[in-house]
């Protein structure tokens, strides 16, 4: 167990170093920060001065060490486009993205799991077939298109819900929340549906296929043979075993939701980190790109680590296979 944890931790650190290195190369080799920061008519002396002030005249490994040191303290420099510290920009926008992602994830789980169970238990009913067909449409619809259609129907044609921004927000310390005002809650509806729909269809289909597989196993047949009620068999025995892989995937999807928020935030002009990132890509604002990359990398590595550990703790088969050695 301990060896497994250490191995995973080491791997996570390795991934973070790789991500950091990519971010650093982005910073130093891909874009020339000096020419990005100066007007085109700057003299060579101006250039040298900026180069020195940014520490670009130092050897490569010193620069990388400095970069890592700064990154660990949350210092990613100053946004080229907005002229403000990147860490400050990210912290300002973190609440918007996290609130949106949380609501989307809850929607996906609370609707996806029951519908998945239903479609597995009532395989041949027309409601199941309808749900499955719609879910296939959900997988095939790109999320930006869902967002556009929702805006067209509910904002442009019906005029019920706002189509961009967060509405009014309340400041709680450094955290700004949209949960406490009516316009904030209304502004959350369309973006969270847009963001959650894909994950919901994914979870629905996963729960269904896992459940169907479990229902075929011998211990379910045995449970039926013992004369247990349908409810006890379905929810006491089958659903429990179904949820193991579902937890894993749902955990991994949480990272996916935060990444996919880039698209939703662009459609709804939602003032979160994703919108900041896409604007940074368009304007070649490298400090912001690098910082976002590191932050997302960190969130992903953390989620993966937690999911790995959970999986290891929940599924005893994994332990047996590993101690079997050599495979």
């Amino acid at each position, binding site marked *: 167990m301990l060896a497994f944890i250490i191995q995973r931790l080491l791997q996570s650190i390795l*991934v973070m170093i790789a991500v950091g290195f990519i971010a650093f190369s982005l910073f130093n080799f891909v874009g020339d920060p000096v020419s990005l920061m100066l007007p085109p008519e700057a003299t060579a002396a101006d250039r040298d001065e900026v180069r020195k002030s940014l520490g670009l005249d130092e050897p490569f490994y010193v620069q990388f060490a400095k970069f890592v040191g700064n990154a660990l303290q949350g210092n990613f420099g100053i946004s080229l486009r907005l002229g403000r510290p990147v860490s400050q920009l990210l912290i300002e926008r973190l609440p918007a993205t996290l609130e949106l992602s949380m609501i989307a994830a809850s929607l996906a789980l609370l609707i996806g799991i029951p519908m998945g169970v239903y479609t597995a238990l009532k395989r041949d009913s027309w409601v199941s077939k309808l749900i499955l067909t719609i879910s296939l449409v959900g997988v095939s619809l790109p999320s930006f298109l869902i967002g556009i259609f929702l805006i067209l129907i509910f904002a*442009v044609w019906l005029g019920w819900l706002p189509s961009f921004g967060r509405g009014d927000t309340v400041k709680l310390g450094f955290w700004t929340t949209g949960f406490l005002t009516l316009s904030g809650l209304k502004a959350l509806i369309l973006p969270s549906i847009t963001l959650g729909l894909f994950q919901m269809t994914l979870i629905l289909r996963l729960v269904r296929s896992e459940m169907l597989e479990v229902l075929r196993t011998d211990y379910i047949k045995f449970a039926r043979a013992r004369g247990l009620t349908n409810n006890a068999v379905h929810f006491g025995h089958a659903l429990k075993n179904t949820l193991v892989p579902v937890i894993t995937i749902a955990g991994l999807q949480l990272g*996916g939701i935060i990444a996919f928020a880039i698209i939703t935030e662009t459609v709804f002009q939602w003032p979160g980190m994703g919108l900041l990132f896409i604007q940074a890509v368009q304007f070649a604002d490298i400090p912001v790109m690098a910082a976002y990359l590191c932050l997302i990398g960190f969130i992903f590595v953390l989620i993966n680590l937690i999911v790995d550990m959970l999986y290891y703790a929940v599924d005893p088969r994994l332990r047996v296979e590993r101690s079997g050695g050599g495979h």
Partner: protein
Amino acid sequence: MQDTMKRFFDGDVWWSFKHNPLVIAAAITALICVLGAAFAPWLSPHNPFDLKTINLLDAFTPPAWVTNGKSQFVLGTDDQGRDVLSTIMHGSRITLLVGICAVMLSMLIGITLGLVSGYIGGKLDAFIMRVADIQLSFPAILIALLIDGVARVAVGKEYHDQIAVYVLIFAIAASGWVQYARTVRGSTLVERNKEYVQAARVIGRSPLAIMFSHVLPNVTGPVLVLATLHVGTAILTEATLSFLGVGVPPTQPSLGTLIRIGNDFLFSGEWWITVFPGIALVVLVLSINLLGDWLRDALNPKLR
């Protein structure tokens, strides 16, 4: 040849195709989309890129069945007076081109790495699979976005517009190779211990020849299913990137670019500029996904 044809038409796959009306409909729809896109320059009612035939006075014409619609522009016109149906047909061309090329490049990378990884094994295998693990923990769209963003910064705006399509193909391909590599590696590990591979080794064929002419034909089945489903995903990735403004430039619009352009006019009431390219994208991807789903089930004996 005739024999294989006969075997195919007598086989389970064809039988399940014939008895599944939804799949037949999907196949026909996909075929129409692909043909319409491939022959767009000859089939489309107008040439949206020929400046001589475009009249700015025709701009924002609604679809033909709406009041003020004109019969020569069935689905209306966009802000520059281009016929929406024609831009959709030309746009699908670029979308399909990028999608299919990306999948082929992805297969090439993935199959090669998977074969090498599975057949040679050892440290190389561990390294390739570790990279695959790491990449798989990040969503494909993020990786494609990153590659595209880096290319944009690296080569400069003007030059980037010229090579945007290639960058996009590479970005999507690089974000999708892992699945192929894993699948091929898995099958290769099984195949490498079989007698025919040992026989080939005994008669002194080189590892490269064994990998590509003996092992490869025996591991392609699952790869084909993956590829069909991947075309749908690749098309969606392309459309998403273009919609975000980091894909193909507006001078050669894909479906995603068209939706992006139309999105600016959503609030002024010109919905058709966005909605029709959007519907075209959904119909295309949905029919491909239906075919992929069916193929996966038809080739999987467990589900019968």
